[in-house]
């Protein structure tokens, strides 16, 4: 533990990310107002004691909506990274150990998927499947599969060459058990680092898709959606955009810093190179 918190990046990133997670957890139990409660009398208010971060054009409390939006962002991060990890690691291992043909097929497919710009891919998928939060998560998750597949393949190949793998095999341990006992634990830290960083990217991507109207649909609170709605009122009530924007920046910065810190701690060789 001291190893992790001795690292400045990790500590700051951890605190920022923890705040987001706590905000999300809190919003499930309590928010100052119902995030979807409209009030014609309180439209477009600036920050005040009653509404610390102001209200939007329907008189909804921005603080409540930002807290509720945190759940959205965390959920998107978790689901997309989970999709990427599960399928990416499986495909990456298959590419690394499944022989030449499997390797070529999987990696060329990954190249193909990488060839499309991420946002374009997401727009394509959401426009086929229809705009919704679930489809946005799917779109981002699918884009993550080659990211994790490539990483897994690269690090798993290095591990595979190690003598302790040959030692396990010489002991009569089966190939699947070797993957479970030796390969997975040894590729865990790069995956964890990548996962944390992709978590940040997912939050940003979801905000982007929701901003474009392809992600979370109204009336649900999403930071990207809030930015979109604030656009029209940028001249008259800029705080409507500022606070969700800050929330996005906060969360993305937090998870990115945490990922960087993790890399410094778990992979000291990389840190020295940089």
């Amino acid at each position, binding site marked *: 533990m001291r190893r992790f918190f001795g690292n400045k990046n990790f500590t700051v990133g951890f605190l920022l990310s923890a705040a987001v997670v706590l905000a999300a957890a809190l919003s499930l139990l309590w928010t100052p107002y119902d995030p979807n409660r409209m009030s014609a009398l309180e439209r477009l208010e600036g920050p005040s004691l009653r509404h610390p971060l102001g209200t939007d054009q329907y008189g909804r409390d921005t603080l409540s909506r930002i807290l509720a939006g945190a759940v959205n962002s965390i959920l998107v991060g978790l689901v997309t990274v989970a999709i990427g990890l599960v399928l990416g690691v499986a495909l990456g291992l298959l590419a690394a150990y499944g022989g030449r043909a499997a390797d070529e097929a999987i990696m060329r497919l990954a190249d193909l998927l990488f060839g499309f710009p991420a946002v374009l891919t997401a727009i394509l998928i959401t426009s086929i499947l229809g705009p919704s939060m679930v489809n946005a998560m799917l779109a981002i998750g699918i884009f993550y599969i080659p990211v994790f597949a490539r990483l897994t393949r690269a690090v798993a190949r290095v591990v595979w060459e190690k003598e302790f793998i*040959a030692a*396990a095999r010489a002991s009569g341990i089966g190939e699947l058990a070797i993957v479970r006992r*030796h390969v997975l634990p040894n590729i865990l830290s790069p995956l964890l680092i990548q996962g944390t960083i992709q978590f940040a990217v997912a939050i940003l991507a979801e905000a982007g898709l929701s901003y474009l109207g392809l992600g979370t649909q109204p009336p649900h609170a999403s930071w990207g959606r809030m930015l979109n709605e604030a656009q029209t009122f940028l001249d008259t009530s800029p705080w409507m955009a500022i606070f969700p924007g800050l929330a996005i920046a906060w969360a993305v910065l937090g998870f990115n810093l945490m990922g960087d810190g993790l890399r410094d701690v778990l992979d000291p060789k990389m840190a020295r190179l940089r």
Partner: protein
Amino acid sequence: MTERPLVRAVDLTKRFPIGGGLFRRPRAWLQAVNGVSFAISRGESLGLVGESGCGKSTIGRMLLGLIPPTSGTIAFDGIDIGKLPRAEFLRLRRRMQVIFQDPYASLDPRMTVEAIVTEPLFAGRPPRRAERRRIAAGLIERVGLRASDLDRYPHEFSGGQRQRIGIARALCVRPELIVADEPVSALDVSIQAQVINLLQDLQRDFGLAYLFISHDLSVVEHLCRRVAVMYLGAIVETAPAWDFSRRPLHPYTEALVAAVPVPDVRRPRPPFRMEGDVPSPIDPPPGCPFHPRCPYAFDPCPRATPPLVEAAPGREVACWLNDGRGLSAPATASPSPAKGELHA
């Protein structure tokens, strides 16, 4: 000699493809091991010596079933392991274990010592946790570490200690054969002696047979009863360990023995040193693989490969010079061109 050997390898050959791809033919073949035969009895230790790249480790790996031979057979306790179904082969393989050269690479850094030394148990149905702990404690104490070390990780140990952990792992399932692939060459000399003594004690206590792969003649002479010298994928000489450095029969063995540093200034240096490099196993020379570097080479050498034949009781050599008298006789009797007449 009527006793069935624990391991018998017959005419083992291994070729590795070089280059090539999914749909392309390999550009060339690397002849790593070329028609090697040997046998190891129970409780016996066979030393396999030779320069790096001569195919020693490939033989060890084929024996362990880590790589399949291109041709030839390996019989363990009379059972041809190439013909066994996979499940039975896995069971048989528990009877042979391995110790690797690099004690830093051969232990999984993410595992505790206990998990490492009991790993071979997981090849079958592993015993309960408490029982595993007891087994691990017994093993780790047997190799000279403490039971309190079981919860530590490999990086907390020195090279010699790590190699002891590797040895404990090899002992875990009470094997009959241990393939020791350069087990001490990565260690400091002072630590080497301790590990070698440990290996010797274990051999006595457990009746282990060793295939001891090394490039260090003095280590092999100390630990092994018999020695096989390899050059470019083939065995060129086999001899009892006590005899072979005194009376090398093959010019290559002579060169190897001459290269061993002896801490005695008065002892005369043996007559010649090897020159040149080991030829590439991708493009081995015709005839005797050693002839381009051999000071005694004469006409048959580039034309035909000498077979490994018995030259004296318990001694085999693959050399056209072989007449059982040892090298010093022809070498001092006449300069090299004349020797051709001796044997022609």
